[in-house]
Each structure stands twice: as structure tokens, then as C-alpha cells.
């Protein structure tokens, strides 16, 4: 068997590792168009902030590919797939054949369509090159405008504020993190950011980027101008689906896969930020461009490339952020559209906010700000779709811990998939 993986980040590497674990002899190759191997994209803002250096960017041992006898192509871009011949072609025209192929092509930053975007000093933070370029310029920069108040924009802003820069975040929505949390949580998080010197400007959008060669100002749609020498676009990502689409695979917002992470071609699989999978909490197909989902999908895709036919239950959107010591975690549906179909259990107390969103006694979403302890326990209640009616009254308890769900683990033993859950209740 010849296994080929396009993409060397979370999903691609997890797939390669799992393939090798189960198949010691087959040929496995990973192609990456990056200049730096095995780095964690999520760590780039930590690099920007100056809290780590490049040597800490690795999420696997530097010798991972050698150790696992995996052929690795660095700085190579796959440009086409010939599904009939079962081969791919690289930009340098090298052809590589495969028996099973994984597309882990990831995602790219969404850009904004405003005049002046091509000026020097406008960046996105997605690849190591972006971070390096920003840092090269940073000592000449005092003021930075971040376009986008989502997770990416705020993480970028937080990082650059830690470098002592004057940072303003321009947010189109009336609140920050509008995809991730509700208004209440957003106001707590925004307050923490503002308290630490990050200016949050909601309900505004950039209209024009002004400057000669370099960025000098950004004009907002209310006529206000903000002086800045650097602009970071942190507007979220879109799946890299070009390669899949060009060879006729089914593509919607992402590459469409079935419950085995297989695309519309039986020899081609997809995982990670480029793949549109089933969302457990929402009950619909969606891209959850998140590290844990990418790893899980990469592993699961590998098992199915090995023909083990193991279903992937789907992904759960979940995010964790920590700004100036205020930790927040969100999961699943945090802002239901039709409120009447949902039950909301929430509380704000001493700047700690907890919110649980339930549908027919099953938790489908959660927001925690300031106290994130119960997050993981709630995650298994969401993932395994457990009826929580008997412990509902405990959800807001400061001491909510695993013991509180033990009666549920005992009652719905078969629903809890993790074997170790069963170990805890042997004597329950």
C-alpha cells in the first residue's frame, strides 16, 4: 500500500502517525507547502507575544518523520490530482502515486475587500512566515489595528499588546467573539482586554487603508481615522478546497466527507480545517477548524484508509482562550437562534459567568468565563448526548466535578464511549 498525505499540520501528522502505528511496512509520505516542519500553528501568537521562541513551535519531535519511516516533502505544493491514475502532481512537476490519499490541506485566512490592502504593513497570522515578517517589522511599529474581533483577531491583538504595542481591534459585530460566545461572556472578555490597554471598537468596519508605501492610517465606516503602522487581518479562515474541487470531488464550504471521512472518491479522504464534517451539537454538516478536531479526524481517517471501517461520530466546536488571566471556554451551541426550543441555565457571579444550553435535557452548548474547571466533564455530556435532567440543578455549582456525573455514567454506561469512564464506577 502507498499512503499519501497532503498537509503536514495537525490532521496530516496525526494521520501519518496512526497509519504507521498500524502498518509498519507500507510506504507513507507527507507533503507540506510550508518552510518549517512540524510546527503548531496555534503557537504562532505565542511566538508573536514573545512568550516562546521558534524552537518551541514543534508539536512533535524534530525526528518524527525519520523515526516513523515517513517520507516527508517540505516546501512542496501539490497542484493537481489525477484520480484515474491515482497520482498527484507537485508544482515542480514531480508525480507521486498513491493507493490511499488524505487531503489535509487546511485553511487560509479570510481577507477583507478594502482599498489599500496591498500596502506594506498589512498582515495575516497563519504561517510561520507571517509571524517572522511581523516580528521583523515590529520595532518600527507603535500602533496596530486588528481587523476582526473573533478568536483569531483577539489572539493576535493580545499577542501584540504583550509586546507593548498600542492595539485597537475593529469589530464589525456589536460584540467580540460573536461566533464563539454570547453577549454576556463577550462583555466580560472585552472588559478584561480594555482594562489591559486593548481598544475594542465594535460595530465598525475598515473602509480604506491609507498610506503611501506603508500603512499610515485606517479609515473606518463612521469616518473616523485610526493612526497605525501595522494592520493585522484576523477575520477567520476559509477551507482550502481548490485542489479537491479541481479534480471533481464534492465540495461545499469544505471538502464533503462521509462518516468515514471519505470524500466522494473512495480512495481519497479529508480531515482537519478543510473537511466539512458532522457537528454533534448542531446536528448538521459544518467545518470545525480546530486543533483537537483536526487531530481526531486525522487519526480516524487513517483507520479508514487502513480499511478498518470505524465511524467518526462527528466534531464538537470548542474553544479555549485566556486573555490577561481571564480563561474562557465555549462549546457547541452558545447562542441558539430559536430560544424557545432550548433551555438556558446561566449565572453571573463575581465576574464568573456560566451558561449551559440544553435541548430536551441534553446539553448542546456551554460558555464558561472565569472558571473553566467543569469544561471537560461537560464535553463528554455533550459528545455522548446524555440526558442530564437528574443533575441539572448541580450545573452551576462551584464544586461541579466528575463525581457529580457518576450516577449518569453508571446509568448510561454504554453511551459513554471512553473506556476509562467505566473504570471509575466499578464500585459505584
Amino acid at each position, binding site marked *: 500500500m502507498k499512503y499519501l498525505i497532503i498537509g503536514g499540520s*495537525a490532521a496530516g501528522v*496525526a494521520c501519518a502517525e496512526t497509519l504507521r502505528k498500524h502498518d509498519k511496512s507500507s510506504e507513507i509520505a507527507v507533503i507540506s507547502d510550508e518552510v518549517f516542519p512540524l510546527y*503548531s500553528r*496555534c*503557537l504562532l501568537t*505565542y511566538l508573536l507575544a514573545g*512568550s*516562546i521562541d521558534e524552537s*518551541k513551535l*514543534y*508539536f*512533535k519531535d524534530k525526528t518524527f518523520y525519520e523515526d516513523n519511516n515517513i517520507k516527508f516533502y517540505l516546501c512542496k505544493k501539490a497542484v493537481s490530482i489525477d484520480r484515474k491514475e491515482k497520482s498527484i502532481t507537485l508544482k515542480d512537476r514531480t508525480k507521486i502515486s498513491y493507493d490511499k490519499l488524505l487531503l489535509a490541506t487546511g485553511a487560509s485566512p479570510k481577507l477583507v475587500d478594502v482599498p489599500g490592502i496591498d500596502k506594506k504593513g498589512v498582515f495575516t497570522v497563519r504561517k510561520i512566515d507571517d509571524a517572522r515578517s511581523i516580528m521583523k517589522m515590529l520595532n518600527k511599529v507603535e500602533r496596530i489595528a486588528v481587523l476582526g474581533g473573533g478568536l483569531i483577531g483577539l489572539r493576535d491583538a493580545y499577542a501584540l499588546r504583550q509586546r507593548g504595542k498600542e492595539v485597537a481591534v475593529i469589530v464589525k459585530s456589536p460584540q467580540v467573539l460573536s461566533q464563539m460566545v454570547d453577549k454576556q461572556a463577550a462583555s466580560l472578555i472585552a472588559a478584561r482586554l480594555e482594562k489591559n490597554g486593548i481598544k475594542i471598537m465594535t460595530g465598525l468596519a475598515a473602509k480604506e487603508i491609507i498610506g503611501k508605501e506603508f500603512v499610515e492610517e485606517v479609515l473606518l465606516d463612521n469616518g473616523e481615522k485610526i493612526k497605525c503602522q501595522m494592520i493585522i487581518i484576523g477575520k477567520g479562515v476559509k477551507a482550502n478546497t481548490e485542489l479537491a474541487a479541481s479534480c471533481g470531488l464534492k465540495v461545499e464550504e469544505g471538502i464533503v466527507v462521509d462518516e468515514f471521512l471519505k470524500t466522494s472518491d473512495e480512495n481519497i479522504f479529508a480531515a482537519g480545517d478543510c473537511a466539512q464534517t458532522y457537528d454533534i451539537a448542531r446536528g448538521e454538516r459544518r467545518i470545525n477548524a480546530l*486543533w*483537537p478536531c483536526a*487531530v*481526531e479526524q486525522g*487519526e480516524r481517517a487513517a483507520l479508514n484508509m487502513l480499511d478498518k471501517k470505524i465511524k467518526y461520530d462527528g466534531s464538537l466546536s*470548542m474553544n*479555549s482562550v*485566556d486573555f490577561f*488571566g481571564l*480563561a474562557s*471556554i465555549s*462549546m457547541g451551541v452558545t447562542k441558539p437562534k430559536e430560544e424557545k426550543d432550548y433551555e438556558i441555565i446561566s449565572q453571573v457571579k463575581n465576574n464568573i459567568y456560566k451558561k449551559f444550553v440544553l435541548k430536551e435535557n441534553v446539553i448542546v452548548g456551554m460558555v464558561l468565563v472565569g472558571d*473553566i*474547571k*467543569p*469544561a*471537560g*466533564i461537560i*464535553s*463528554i455530556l455533550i459528545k455522548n448526548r446524555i440526558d442530564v435532567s437528574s443533575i441539572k440543578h448541580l450545573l452551576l455549582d462551584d464544586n461541579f*466535578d*466528575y*463525581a*457529580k456525573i*457518576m*450516577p449518569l455514567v453508571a446509568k448510561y454506561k454504554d453511551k459513554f464511549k*471512553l*473506556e*476509562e*469512564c467505566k*473504570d*471509575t*464506577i*466499578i*464500585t*459505584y
Partner: protein
Amino acid sequence: MTKDLLKKKKTKDIKIYCDITKCVGCRSCEIACAVEHSKSKDIFSAIKEKALPKKRVKAENINNKIISLHCQHCEDAPCIKACMSGALSKDEKTGATLQDKDKCVGCWMCVMSCPFGAIVQDVENHIAVKCDLCPDREDFACVAACPTGALFVGTKEEFEKKVKKK
């Protein structure tokens, strides 16, 4: 518990179990764990350490049923999948879920995904903290400190056999 059993270290099949019927919630395990992870490893010095040592085990209860719970070192560990800095990994020989503190950046993705709530925040050092199976000693501090014999080291079969006997 015999001394030999105390000395058993984690291997793929051996782990620490808690007999809920025997746990009284005395929190001896919590204290022993914190002391073991202090600089001095001595309780009277430990309580004076600037950053108080952190426990990685917790006595938790519901309806008078108490469990001493720590990292279960899951075979298919969700925390390792979630760890985006490569700080968490699986020791293939012992089955232990290990943490490289130097690599942890405190993103709390592991806290978000641990089904047991067994990974906690060390806010002072901004890193995650979890059971490391006491690398500095031959046995486990929590098990050694358990006065009721609720904590047990062995295989699942051994534990099941032991609790059935009663």
C-alpha cells in the same frame, strides 16, 4: 496493602483505582500529592513555599459517595489530541499520559477536553497540572497516604476481584 503492591508502578495494565465504598473523603491523598509535588517534599516546609504546591488528585463526592480521582491515563487520551503545543504525550511502554512542562503554554485545551476534570490550571506558572505518577518515588504518594485502603494499584481484574470479595 502489602509493600510490594504499593511499589507497583504504572504499566500498560496497572493503574490506580479507587474503591468508592471505602473512600471517606479524608483528603489524605490530596495532601500527600501536593507535598510530593512541593519543592521540599515536606509538609511543614511545603505550606510555606511561595507558590503553594498543587495537588493533582481530588476527593469528590455525590450523595455520600466519594471518589479520589486523578488522571486516568486514558489509552485514547482526549487531552493529548487537544494539546496543540506537543506538551502532552503517551508513554508507549507504561501507558502513562506525560506532560512536558517546558512545552506547555497554558492554552487550557487539555482542561477543555479531559472528561474527568483531572487537569487543572496552575495560574501562577500559567501551565496545566496533572498526575505525573510520582516520578521521584517508587510508589504513589496518594496510594501510600490512603488510610482506608480505598486507593488500589493493580490491574483491572485484580481490582474487580478485590472489591468482589467483600
